[in-house]
């Protein structure tokens, strides 16, 4: 039998104004198990907590009921109080007589009556409480970062600098991601490569970081602190450790017309290639779909010219099994396809391009060596039209595009427009916008400079149609402020395509059991208070995989994710939530039903020997809950038909006791 103390809080007049607290503590004194009952002005105050500690000692209490505000407010406080008094913290139950009673009921009589009933329910529950101790699991002190863009790079560097080993898995032959493709960055206009490539070198030289480039995550098992990950290292047909990155092979390769993905197909590369000069790792990769040797066995030029002997046409994919304590997702974004927006003639004219293509077009390492030449005839364009929000902010019922704002387009378009006007003042630049969104440090100033200093023509309105005719692009648009329909003969049209999460994110989320929103962005554990954590313990989010972000935001989130990872990896052991499920093996049927509903894969089965009453030994399949993985939702307890599965802290018998107390 428990010895329960009841402590009724007045919360000043917050509770006492509508609930007769004396009547409540008097009524509850007569409940089974209750040996002490009192009330006090502020139970959560130090004086109030002292009353509890005193009572525990004087009356040898084994359980505590606090009738007060919501447990979401002070459950943790009173659990600490109990611990201070020498009790197990989980011997405390809260009756919520403020938010769910005194604040919502005006009438003293009914408020008091309800408060008593809620108190009785809490007493009934505590009568069945048992001390709970959180489980402990060890932590593998190594982190995995999936994605080697600026987000992944920053996260990895920060984790490594704190002294923990970290691996980056990047599906492309080099790290660097989208930022490596950019020309300048807003609002400072410093060159992307100048600030990114030193970081890439840092990654390569950091002893704590391993880069698995041209690799993909194939399978993830385990749980926070203890992930088992299978990584597929795709065959690049070049021995990474031997290749010096001299680039001779890429000059001699006879297959010259492979669309160069780094320049978004605007020029060509060879079948053996290094994506760009500052690639990390700087090693060549053979494209098996283009290489004559791999396709037909006829060529072998690269092997002949490679003095280091790095070419290996027989190389196979390699599967690595690695263990990690934490996983950071940094899978980034891509511009959406423009197929559904062909009113802008992207598929009809080479001179209608996306903003990312424009970045390559103005980049000194790009297909035109940084000269602004339009793709169709390599002539200098004199009239350029930028179209904002192509595929962003589309209602779902419009059946194309994305509902969200892509966030970065307003600023990079201002940057593009400004750079053009700066280098080529003879060029007319129009920007069609719905709204110009510039919340960020020095952002609006930047946009205003584009307008005021550089004379970029910002027009409130949208482009309705682009018609290529002759060597012009006839742009039909609205100018809502002038109330006009404009017809502009443009030489180049640049579309600010909406961005979307990388396609690899969805299967990865499934492997991680991490949740995603309807747009395939990873969901954060809490939108305000835990923005860099996934709800799945041990999984963290970095960069645009969580939502559209510019570089400074991405880097901040990357470092924040690193801080969270470091906070996890410094622990030797993890203490879990003790309110987890557990199976009574004597009753378990081993039927696998609970395993099917568990969202965390916390339940496994073992064959266990049982000594029967007749002294024989029988082997039965029984469920085992991993307390480090179980989050305590209780889905399994209802799915279990034999009643073997129960949830600590919310046992069936406890909930039924509450029901009975309320319905008595």
């Amino acid at each position, binding site marked *: 039998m428990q010895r329960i103390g009841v402590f009724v809080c007045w919360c000043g007049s917050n509770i006492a104004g509508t609930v007769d607290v004396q009547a409540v503590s008097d009524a509850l004194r007569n409940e089974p198990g209750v040996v002490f009952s009192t009330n006090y002005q502020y139970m959560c105050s130090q004086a109030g907590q002292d009353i509890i500690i005193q009572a525990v000692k004087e009356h040898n209490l084994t359980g505590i009921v606090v009738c007060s505000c919501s447990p979401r407010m002070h459950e943790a406080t009173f659990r600490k109080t109990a611990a201070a008094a020498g009790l197990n913290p989980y011997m405390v139950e809260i009756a919520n007589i403020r938010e769910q009673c005194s604040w919502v009921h005006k009438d003293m009589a009914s408020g008091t009556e309800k408060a008593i009933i809620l108190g009785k329910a809490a007493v009934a529950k505590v009568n069945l409480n048992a001390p709970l101790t959180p489980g402990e699991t060890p932590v593998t002190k190594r982190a995995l970062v999936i994605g080697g863009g600026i987000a992944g790079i920053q996260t990895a560097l920060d984790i490594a600098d704190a002294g923990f080993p970290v691996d980056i898995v990047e599906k492309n032959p080099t790290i660097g991601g989208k930022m490596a493709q950019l020309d300048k960055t807003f609002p400072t206009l410093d060159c992307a490569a100048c600030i990114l490539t030193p970081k890439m070198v840092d990654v390569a030289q950091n002893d704590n970081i391993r880069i698995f480039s041209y690799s993909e995550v194939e399978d993830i098992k385990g749980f926070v602190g203890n992930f088992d990950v299978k990584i597929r290292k795709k065959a690049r047909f070049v021995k990474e450790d031997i290749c010096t990155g001299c680039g001779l092979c890429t000059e001699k390769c006879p297959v010259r017309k492979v669309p160069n993905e780094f320049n978004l197909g605007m020029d060509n590369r060879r079948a053996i290639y290094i994506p760009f000069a500052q690639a990390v790792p700087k090693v060549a990769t053979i494209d098996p779909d283009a290489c004559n040797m791999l396709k037909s066995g006829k060529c072998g030029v690269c092997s002949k010219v490679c003095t280091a002997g790095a070419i290996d046409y027989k190389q196979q994919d390699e599967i690595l099994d690695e263990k990690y304590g934490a996983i950071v997702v940094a899978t980034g974004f891509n511009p959406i396809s423009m197929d559904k927006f062909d009113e802008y003639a992207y598929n009809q004219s080479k001179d209608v391009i996306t903003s990312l293509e424009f970045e390559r077009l103005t980049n000194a390492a790009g297909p035109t060596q940084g000269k602004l030449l339009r793709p169709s005839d390599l002539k200098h364009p004199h009239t350029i039209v930028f179209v904002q*929000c192509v595929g962003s*902010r589309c*209602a779902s019922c419009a059946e194309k595009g994305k509902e969200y704002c892509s966030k970065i387009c307003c600023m990079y378009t201002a940057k593009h427009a400004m750079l053009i006007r700066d280098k080529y003042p003879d060029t007319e630049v129009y920007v069609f916008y*719905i709204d110009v969104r510039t919340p960020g440090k020095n952002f609006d100033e930047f946009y205003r400079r584009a307008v005021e200093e550089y004379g970029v023509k910002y027009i409130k309105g949208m482009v*309705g*149609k682009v018609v290529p005719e002759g060597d012009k692009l006839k742009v039909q648009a*609205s100018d*809502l402020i002038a109330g006009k*329909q404009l017809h502009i003969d443009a030489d180049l049209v640049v579309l600010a395509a909406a961005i979307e999460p990388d396609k690899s994110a969805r299967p990865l989320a499934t492997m991680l059991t991490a949740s995603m929103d309807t747009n395939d962005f990873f969901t954060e554990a809490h939108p305000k208070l835990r923005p860099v954590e996934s709800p799945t313990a041990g999984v963290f989010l970095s960069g645009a995989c969580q939502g559209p972000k510019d570089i400074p935001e991405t880097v901040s989130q990357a470092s924040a994710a690193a801080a969270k990872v470091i906070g996890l990896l410094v622990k030797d052991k993890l203490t879990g939530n003790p309110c987890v499920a557990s199976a009574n093996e004597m009753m378990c049927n081993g039927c696998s039903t609970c395993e099917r509903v568990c969202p965390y894969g916390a339940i496994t089965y073992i064959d266990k020997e049982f000594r029967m009453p007749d002294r024989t030994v029988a082997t039965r399949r029984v469920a085992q809950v991993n307390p480090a993985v179980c989050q305590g939702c209780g889905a399994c307890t209802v799915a279990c038909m034999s009643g073997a599965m129960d949830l600590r802290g919310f046992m069936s018998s406890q909930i039924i006791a509450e029901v009975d107390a309320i319905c008595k």
Partner: protein
Amino acid sequence: MHNDNRKIADEIILRSGVNPRKCMKCGKCTATCPAFDRMEYHPHQFVYMVETGDIEPLLESKSLYTCLSCFACVDRCPRGVEPAKLVEGVRNAVIRQQGKNHMTADDVPGKLDSDLPQQAIVSAFRKYTK
């Protein structure tokens, strides 16, 4: 008077099934409209004026009869507002009144030529008369 306008606007919204509040004022409908030059009020203005109940100028505007019903604004609207249906809703509110047909049988002979397909005549009648 203002109340009447609101009522008419609400009736148009109800009958056309178009929700003008979905509009984000991007102007793509007007940008895409092939009949822009012939219109006094343009598609985005139709949407805005019905939304705000500023309906009288619309009821009297010849823009009602210059919409080609090409539906380009409907398909290109990023918010799924369907401006063309709203234009039709306003037009219906006019021509369904007594004596407000925009075209009568007597008007037709003067507009005919020997090649004009029947389709044009029946379409115009559907659009311009109750």
